[in-house]
C-alpha cells in the first residue's frame, strides 16, 4: 500500500511539475511579450518626444519664446531677443487658470503695467496669439524707453 501511495504521489508531483513548468513557460512568454510591447511603446514615445522637442526648440528659437510648465499649475512664458543690446536677457510672465476658469497673469519680470489690460482682452476674445504678441510689444517698448 505504501509503495502504491508513493508511486501515486510521485505521479501527482510529476504532473504538478509539468503544470508548473508550463505555467513558468507561459509566464516567461508573457513577460517576453510584455517586455517587447513596453520596449516598442517606449521607443515610439521616445521618438515622438524627440520630434516634439525638436519642433518646440525650433519654435523657441524662431519666436524667441519659451513655454514652460511650472509648479502650481502655471505656464511660464519667457521672451528673448527683446533688448537689441542684450538679446539673451529674458523677459517673462506667468499664466494660470483661476477658480472661475479664467486666464490670470502673474509674476511678470520686469513689471508690466499694461499686463492687466491684456489679461482682460484675452478673457474676452480668447485670442491667445494676439495676447502674446502684445506682451512682446510692450516689453520691447519698455526697453526702448
Amino acid at each position: 500500500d505504501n509503495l502504491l501511495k508513493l508511486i501515486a504521489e510521485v505521479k501527482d508531483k510529476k504532473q504538478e511539475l509539468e503544470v508548473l513548468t508550463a505555467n513558468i513557460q507561459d509566464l516567461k512568454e508573457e513577460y517576453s511579450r510584455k517586455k517587447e510591447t513596453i520596449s516598442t511603446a517606449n521607443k515610439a514615445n521616445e521618438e515622438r518626444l524627440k520630434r516634439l522637442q525638436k519642433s518646440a526648440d525650433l519654435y523657441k528659437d524662431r519666436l524667441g519664446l519659451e513655454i514652460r510648465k511650472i509648479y502650481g499649475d502655471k505656464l511660464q512664458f519667457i521672451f528673448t531677443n527683446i533688448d537689441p543690446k542684450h538679446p539673451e536677457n529674458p523677459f517673462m510672465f506667468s499664466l494660470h487658470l483661476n477658480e472661475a476658469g479664467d486666464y490670470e497673469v502673474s509674476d511678470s519680470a520686469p513689471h508690466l503695467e499694461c499686463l492687466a489690460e491684456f489679461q482682460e482682452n484675452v478673457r474676452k476674445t480668447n485670442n491667445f496669439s494676439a495676447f502674446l504678441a502684445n506682451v512682446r510689444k510692450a516689453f520691447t517698448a519698455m526697453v526702448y524707453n
Partner: protein
Amino acid sequence: RQSWRRASMKEINRRRSLPPFHQGMTELSRSISVDLAESKRLGALLLSSFQFSVQKLEPFLKDAQDFSLESFKAKASFLSQELEHFIGSLEKDGILQKCFEDSKEKALDLNLEASVAEMKEYITKFSLERQTWDQLLLWYQKEALPEETSRGSVETKITEVKMEPTSYLRSSQNEVLYTKPDYQKILQNQNKVFDCMELVIDELQGSMKQLHTFMDESTQCLQKVSVQLEKRSMQQLDTSPARKLLRLH
C-alpha cells in the same frame, strides 16, 4: 573851408547862400570900427554880443516873480566886466589871432590833392571797364537770342566804346577770355562714358528684374511647401491648447 567836392559841383548844384542874419545882429558888426585889428574886432564882437543877449533877455524876465531889475543889471554888469577881462587875456595869449590865421594861409595840402587826383583816375578807369563788361554781356545776350528776334530787337543797345588796346589788355577780361575751356570738346568726350554707363545700367536693370522674378517664385514655392507640411503635421489642432496644458497634471 574849401571843400573840393563843392568846388567840382556845377553852378546849379552849388549850395545856396546862407540865410540873412537878424537885423539887430548885423548892427553889432557894423558898430565895430574896421580900423581895428581883426583880433580886437572879434573881441569887441564877443563882448557886444553878450551885452545884446542881456538886453534881449531883460523884457522876458521882467514879468517873472521875484525878479529884481537892479540885481539883474548888477549881475550883467559884473559878468560883462569879467568877459572883457577874459577876452583881453585871450588876445594877449594870441588865441584870438589864431582864428584868422587859417583863412590867410592857402590850403596847400599836397597829399590831399594827390589822393584826390588818384581817386579821379580810378573812377575813370573803373567806369571804362564797366562799360566794356556791359558791352560783352550785351553781345552774349544777342548771341543767345535767335537770329530773327535779335535783328529786330529794340532793347539791345550796343554802345560802341572805342578802347585803346593797351587799356583793354590790362583789364580783367583778358584773363577770363583766354583761359576759357572748350566745353564742346569736354562734352563730346563724356559721350563715350555716358554710352558705357547706359549699357551697364541696362544690364543691371535686367539682372534686377530676374532677381525679383526668382524671389517671387521662391516665395510662392516656400508658401506651397509650408501649407503642405502644415496639413500633414497639424491635422488635429486642439481648441485652446493653453487651457488643456494648464489643466494637465
